[in-house]
């Protein structure tokens, strides 16, 4: 997979395969921002992806704001959906989370607070097509 990259997926299985492919590029320390509407498949994608790192307890971080997992590497799984203001994010120590260099970080609904995103990151966007297939595109931002 080379960025920018885009694929159309028609099923959960295809999403899982794409997530698996993408996971091979990750070593820890990356920041991955995920954007897309409710039900577009952001959490699902992460769930499939993290199976490759021996993590199988991924659930939605919407309520908790951040879930932490430990598998073959450390993962922070953020969700900005419920955040109203940047201050709230700083309040839970967002900056400290990002300083952990060996940790893989996911941020769902990242586009809600673009000002806090690190300048170097991978962005994945999810678009639901009319026939309910998904357009998943990846790009590198640096």
């Amino acid at each position, binding site marked *: 997979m080379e960025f920018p990259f885009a694929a159309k997926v028609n099923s959960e299985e295809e999403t899982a395969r794409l997530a698996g492919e993408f996971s091979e590029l990750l070593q820890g320390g990356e920041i991955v921002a995920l954007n897309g*509407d*409710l*039900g577009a*498949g952001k*959490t*699902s994608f992460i*769930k499939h992806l993290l199976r490759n790192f021996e993590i199988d*307890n991924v*659930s*939605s971080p*919407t*309520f*908790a*704001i*951040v*879930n*932490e997992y430990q598998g073959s590497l450390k993962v922070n799984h953020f969700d900005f959906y*419920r*955040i*109203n*203001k940047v*201050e*709230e994010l700083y*309040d*839970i*120590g967002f900056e400290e989370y990002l300083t952990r260099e060996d940790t893989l970080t996911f941020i769902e609904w990242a586009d809600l607070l673009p000002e806090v995103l690190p300048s170097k990151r991978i962005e994945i966007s999810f678009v*639901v097509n*009319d026939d*309910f297939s998904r357009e998943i595109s990846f790009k590198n931002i640096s």
Partner: protein
Amino acid sequence: MNVLGIESSCDETSVAVIRDGKLTSNLISSQDFHVKYGGVVPELSSRAHLQIIIPLLKDSLVQAGIGLKDVDVVCATAGPGLIGALLVGLTFGKSLAYSLNKPFIPVNHIEGHIFSGFLMDEKPEFPYLALVVSGGHTLLLIVKSDTEIIKLGTTVDDAAGEAFDKVAKMLGLGYPGGPKIQKAASLGDPEKIHFPVANLKNPYDFSFSGLKTAVLRYLQQTYGKDKAVPDGDMPDIAASFQKAVIKALMQNVEKALKEYKVNSVSLVGGVAANRALREALAQVASKYRKKLVIPDFVYCGDNAAMIAYRGSRLFANGNKYSLDYNAFPGLSSKTFAG
């Protein structure tokens, strides 16, 4: 004996006092206190907890009719929750216990909910089946005693309350989703649309992400992408969605009642405020001839009364904790469920 409870795991700050086994005060920040203690409080701010916790403590003690020096045990939520929010109540509680030279009891927030039925006059009888449904958690458990809890299942993706919030958002009903969906659903036909209930590897687990997607798919197919739902169709969609959530919950409750011998069933957590869910569980409980305990609304949401109660039991059972006890944000560490 006077037990002080402190809760600050998420949006609400709360302080409660239990005097000789009787709840004498339970003040919760979301209930009028924002106005009293200074304007609008941001939803997810540990600063908000900080600002309000001392006035809440003072008022709570006054209401209970005791002074600070009369407090015998201090209990505070240690997790799960938002780390910044948790630390406020936990550190405050520990400092208070230290300065008063009284024992400190850290309490698991979910265990607080699980035992919240004991705040009622009609209490659950061990062993009982507990269904915890809130914005952040969906759990089915067998509670054998004060000290033995067996987790049967949990959500593999979204919590039940989260599904309500997100579907309400898709329908354009606004926040908070639970009451909005309930209101719309009360006028609708729950049989109108068939939304699926997930089948999972562990028969006691729950999944609501697929249901959320099914609603999205239905909206997109019926109205086209990004189009508003006509007001007239709202009630049927809300009712059909609500029915699917309740069906998923009741299915597992029934499975558990067939498999395990229990005396009572208890529904706890914020989503326990949903009327249709309460009615559905009442039917299941009566079918299996189990005593049903659903706490009053004020004990369903986050509150310190349940923290004080749970802490008082931990204390009564002889548990001791040191003051370096740390907050734990996740459900997976230091919990019964881990």
